């Protein structure tokens, strides 16, 4: 069955591409072998074939050659069908081959391979081979990636359950997605939150369950000049570090902190310790960080940081 279907679809594409003019269903049926004898059965099969060709991205147009034609006709414009000329130098073909590897087994892997195949069919000698020594990869393991990419691509609003940081239960969110961005190794979707009526950014790993489309394709308008990377960057950016902490750090410990210290001197009281000054913004987060060093790093100032670290450590014992 599958073989006959491939033969029929192939003949249909060649027929519609080569005629140059609109052909009616009747003319197509006469030209393309493999359709059933009954006209109704033919129509049903032809409808399905048209859908499948369009899904492959084949630009099948409907129209007529003159206003006098009552029956609609079909054609594939060669101009719309064919990949424009593209020639790559060997170094360009090499990076294309490298790029095609990036998605490997992730969401867009099939698309990357399909794209590469067409470019090779255009005469480009790009292999999916690795450059010596470099291996780029995108994994996009978050289940929501596929649906969100489709929503962004087709400009459709979505809804999903989202568990914001520290929330005990997920909330349903409605979003007009503008784009999907990977930052610091994590995927985010940015868009217009329909309930909050302002731009919002969501982390894909916190989406709970499926993403559903909440409107037809084309329903979302991305505001002109939107830079989704900038939207995510602004959302994710650390607030400016305006406060100064004084930490007592044991010699040979706290390397992660020492690298960021604006000042560091030996503790005049005890030579096994140093006194370091560091900038921070959020007391809660910074207290967690300091607490993680245990007895190797002691918060001296400011008092609220010191108190927060003590609370964290007492929480361990609670």
């Amino acid at each position, binding site marked *: 069955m599958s073989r006959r279907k491939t033969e029929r679809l192939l003949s249909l594409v060649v027929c519609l591409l080569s005629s140059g003019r609109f052909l009616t269903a009747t003319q197509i049926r006469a030209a393309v*072998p493999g359709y059933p004898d009954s006209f109704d059965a033919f129509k049903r099969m032809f409808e399905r074939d048209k859908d499948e060709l369009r899904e492959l991205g084949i630009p099948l147009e409907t129209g007529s050659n003159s206003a006098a034609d009552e029956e609609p006709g079909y054609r594939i414009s060669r101009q719309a069908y064919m990949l424009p000329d*593209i020639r790559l130098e060997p170094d360009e073909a090499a990076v294309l081959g490298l790029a095609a590897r990036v998605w490997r087994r992730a969401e867009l892997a099939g698309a990357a391979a399909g794209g590469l195949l067409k470019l090779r069919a255009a005469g480009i000698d790009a292999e999916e081979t690795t450059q010596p*020594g470099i291996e780029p990869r995108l994994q996009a393991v978050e289940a929501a990636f596929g649906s969100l990419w489709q929503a962004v691509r087709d400009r459709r609003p979505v809804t999903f359950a989202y568990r914001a*940081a*520290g929330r005990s239960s997920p909330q349903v969110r409605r979003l007009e997605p503008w784009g999907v961005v990977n930052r610091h190794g994590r995927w985010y979707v940015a868009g217009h939150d329909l309930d909050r009526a302002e731009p919002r950014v969501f982390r894909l790993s916190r989406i709970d369950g499926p993403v559903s489309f909440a409107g037809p394709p084309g329903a979302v308008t991305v505001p002109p000049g939107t830079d989704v990377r900038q939207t995510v960057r602004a959302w994710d950016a650390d607030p400016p570090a305006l406060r100064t902490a004084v930490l007592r750090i044991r010699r040979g410990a706290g390397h992660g902190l020492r690298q960021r210290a604006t000042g560091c001197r030996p503790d005049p009281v005890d030579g096994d310790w140093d006194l370091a000054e560091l900038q921070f913004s959020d007391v809660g987060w910074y207290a967690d960080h300091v607490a993680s060093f245990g007895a*190797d790093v002691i918060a001296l100032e400011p008092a609220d940081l010191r108190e927060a670290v*003590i609370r964290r450590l007492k929480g361990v014992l609670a």
Partner: protein
Amino acid sequence: MTAEAGLSAAPAPREPSSRPATATDRLQRLLALVPYVISRNAVGLADTAAAFGVTERQLVDDLNMLWCVELRAPDPYCPIDLSYEGGEIVVSQAESIDRPLRLGVDEASALLVALRMLAEVPGMEERSALSRTIAKLEAAAGEAGAASAQVAVQVDHNAARDVLDQVRGALAASRRIHLSYYVPGRDEATERDVDPMRLLVVEGRTYLEGWCLRAESVRLFRLDRVMAMSVLDVAASVPGDAQPVDLDQGLFRPSADDVLVLLELSAHGRWVAEYYPCERVEELGEGRLRISLRTPDTRWVRRLALRLGEDGKVIAPPEVADQVREDATAALAHYE
């Protein structure tokens, strides 16, 4: 989590879809096959089959199918003429399918997003080739390329530029590297010699994969945690049986020898399950989670538990739970 890169880990990828090839999959191949042959002066059956990932027998079947296309009206004719005598494919007539179909939105986007990501990798000497390729591909894709602007991967630039240059230089020259490397999970600055294997750029983060002479095994090093490095005047010699990390299985794979750690997290501590690859994640209600994960080194678990305070409790192994309490008591003694 065997990697020195330590805590930040990518979850294991899902299994690839294994749906059977459909009639439309084959149609796509047939439509690419004709221009593939035409755009090359001479192509052999074997090479072409390899290029399309099919057997020679399948390829011959494809060619026969193309050759057999017949349109019956208005006058019967066969639009495609080809031969593969002597193992060399020649297409002498192909009507209108002599050019490949244009790129679809997904195809153009997948390639453009990947190329732009590569162009962001600091120190890529291929930067000029990348920008030329991006421009040509955008032109060829036309409208289909537009949506790709809505997907972006930001490559971390935290690694010192000269670290990346030196790593690539050492890889190209196959030389041993000396690293001062920070292991945040243990708050340790380590010194080690590494024979470089690959530079990995995974989800925007850059890693050196290499044979660590100290650990006598393959290790990943996140470049932003390299405190200092030098390329040694020693040839790298990676053992023949050193297994590169299988990226398709995720960057960090626990080993069966690792310690199994059980943690209970409050709603505020849930982020742990997002950051570290867990063996099991169980909802306890009200946003609380019970997770289990494997680690070769429980020191980072102790640090994690101190950071979490009351938002995360080590349940097992009990000796780790005890150590965490001792750590907290020792730290609190400094505040008295």
